[in-house]
């Protein structure tokens, strides 16, 4: 059965590593539904978070193939219940539409959104949440006239926080024997 997986991985920040990773997924016809790249808590280590929909068997195959890449440090695969994840979205809505009725109040109270900028023509609203929440708010705002809408890729932490930290520790310990210095920030 296909299901949604979040693949989080740590890599050296070497040029080309993202291409190598996506090549593995495209060979297997797996679409990357969202992708976020950023510096991790460890200096010089990049973190990538990707969302894919595929079978359990296939996700394990591609994860081990990704982990085999020389510049990939570690890969984690999680199903949705195992992680806490957020996306962030910006909605640019016509001021006229949004000002009518009690919408503005609802935005803050019911949807936990924030107002970032107000002009006579448009208002920019920001919301973070899971995919469904962000899509829900879009539906709510649609009648007011949405001029622009963008959402980020997913970022995620696991529920068993230990897992990641433990691994970084291990890396650090392995490092003592090795030449490069590794700084762990948190």
């Amino acid at each position, binding site marked *: 059965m296909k299901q949604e997986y979040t693949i989080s991985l740590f890599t050296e920040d070497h040029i080309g590593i993202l291409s190598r990773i996506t090549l593995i997924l495209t060979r297997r016809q797996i679409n990357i539904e969202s992708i976020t790249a950023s510096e991790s808590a460890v200096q010089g280590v990049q973190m990538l978070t990707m969302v894919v929909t595929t079978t359990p068997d296939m996700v394990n195959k591609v994860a*081990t193939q990704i982990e085999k890449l020389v*510049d990939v440090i570690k890969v984690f695969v999680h199903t949705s219940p195992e992680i806490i994840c957020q996306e962030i979205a910006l909605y640019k809505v016509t001021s006229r539409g949004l000002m009518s009725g009690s919408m503005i109040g609802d935005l803050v109270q019911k949807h936990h959104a924030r107002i970032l900028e107000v002009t006579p023509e448009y208002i920019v609203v920001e919301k973070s949440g899971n995919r469904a929440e962000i899509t829900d708010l879009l539906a709510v705002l649609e009648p007011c006239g949405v001029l622009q809408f963008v959402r980020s890729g997913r970022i995620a932490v696991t529920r068993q926080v230990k897992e990641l930290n433990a691994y970084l520790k291990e890396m650090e310990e392995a490092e003592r024997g090795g030449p490069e210095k590794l700084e762990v920030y948190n």
Partner: protein
Amino acid sequence: MNFIMSNDKTKTTNMKNSDSERSQISGAEALLKCLIEEGVDTIFGYPGGAIMPVYDKLLDYSDRLRHILTRHEQGAAHAAQAYAMVTGRPGVCFATSGPGATNLVTGIANAFLDSVPVVFITAQVTSGLIGTDAFQETDILGISMPVTKWNAQVKKAADIPDTIARAFYIARSGRPGPVLVDISKDAQFENLSYSYRKCTYIRSYNPVIPLHIRDIESAAVMINHADKPLILAGHGVILSGAADELKALAEKGGIPVAATLLGLPAFPQRHRLFVGMLGMHGNYAPNVLTNQADLIIAIGMRFDDRVTGNLKKYAPEARIIHIEIDKAEINKNVRVDLEINNDAREVLTTLLPLLREKSREKWIREFRILDRVEYEKVIRPETEPGQDEIRMGEVVKTVSDITEGDAVIVTDVGQHQMAVARYYRFSEKSTLVTSGGMGTMGFGLPASLGAASGNPGKPVIAFIGDGGFQMTLQELGTIMQYQIPVKIILLNNSFLGMVRQWQEMFFNGRYASTEMVNPDFVALAGAYGIQARSVTRREELSQAVGTMLAAEGPFLVEVAIGREANILPMVEPGASVSEVTLTYR
């Protein structure tokens, strides 16, 4: 051959060389010094604009670095791979930017699929021009990404030593494979303050896996309790230098051993426990009995579809133990019951004392019964055809009998390749250089010159088809120039035989573009100053082979083979390994 062992040597020399002299030299010269530090003495390659600074410096190092100028970059790549397979040390291959680099791609992919360490050095246009579609600029990094274990671009001379050190470490450690370093022309000219340190550690890459004794104990229990165990030996046995351990294991447990194409020299074929080659054109007994085995012990192999046939009907009775250094190969094609993700030699060494001594004669007899059937129906008619036209099998057998396994056997791809795999009797003394995973026609001739350049101390004999020969025959020029003593046996059936066989069997005998009008191969060899003769009658065969082997330099024997012979047995596409076709027509 043992890449792991050469890796150990690495560590010791490292101590000695870690404080190499610091001096200002050019990037091009630094590259050559790095290669020497890595123990390289032979380079295969082809020059061009972007790599000229390196070639210029090569002249100054010709006492320590021998450069073999092939006639095509693909040839250089195959030669470097064969050199690695014969010497156990990474091959090295140079090419210029643009077309030079793209001509390597087939050779890189071939080394990648067969896990052979080759360090490819390509030149790149000056760094300021990269990305502008400059003359002879091509994105070789992007192009080679799916077929290299690792690749990198260098645009500053100062980065050359560390990048080369990494390249060698990655190529030969873990599951070996090709790597590519692309060096811009300005980095070759630029000066750096040179020092070299071998690479022994990369944070994100750990090829040495801790041994899980528990798993090995479980394996021992499974083996000790099995009635019908079967060992499948692959290239990994040879790569990890585990042939002796494999033999000890098989003998102690009385376990029959079957091999993949690349695993053939991993186990002596005259040994009573050897039961043959697996897969599409493999032997009858190991294919059929794969599906009766109650335990399969797969060592350093990856369950390629040419080995397994129809996966749905593969080894239904067996539990499977997979000993494999590359974790991504485990559970990829076949679900296994016990995975041991480690180096074959380490695992077998630990496993051996836990094994109970057994003989399993009854099980082994089952193989011999089927062997008899295959002998009568296929092997005898192929190797002793009597009055008929000459068959590939009898040619291979003739060479096998004369050399007694003490040779480096090279093949191209096609029917003749399968004939060699089936009828050459490999032993501990043999090396097999063939294109397995890619099945690259044109591999044989350049690979043979690469193998012979490795000075194996035994004859290098290449079996090549008339089709594949004409894909890279320009390498006769290289053989001539360096007087490389390769012995070429051209099995000429005037057909792209393997494709013709498929057309006959699966496309109603419609021979679409498989028949060839061939040149006079003996005259062609003669044009290159290479001794040659043609054999059209069975009686001339062994004498011609004798003459060829006795000759000092290169020698070509063309043998006229029956035009429409088939390679059998065959596990037809979609069939199970137990549904082998023994006879056809």
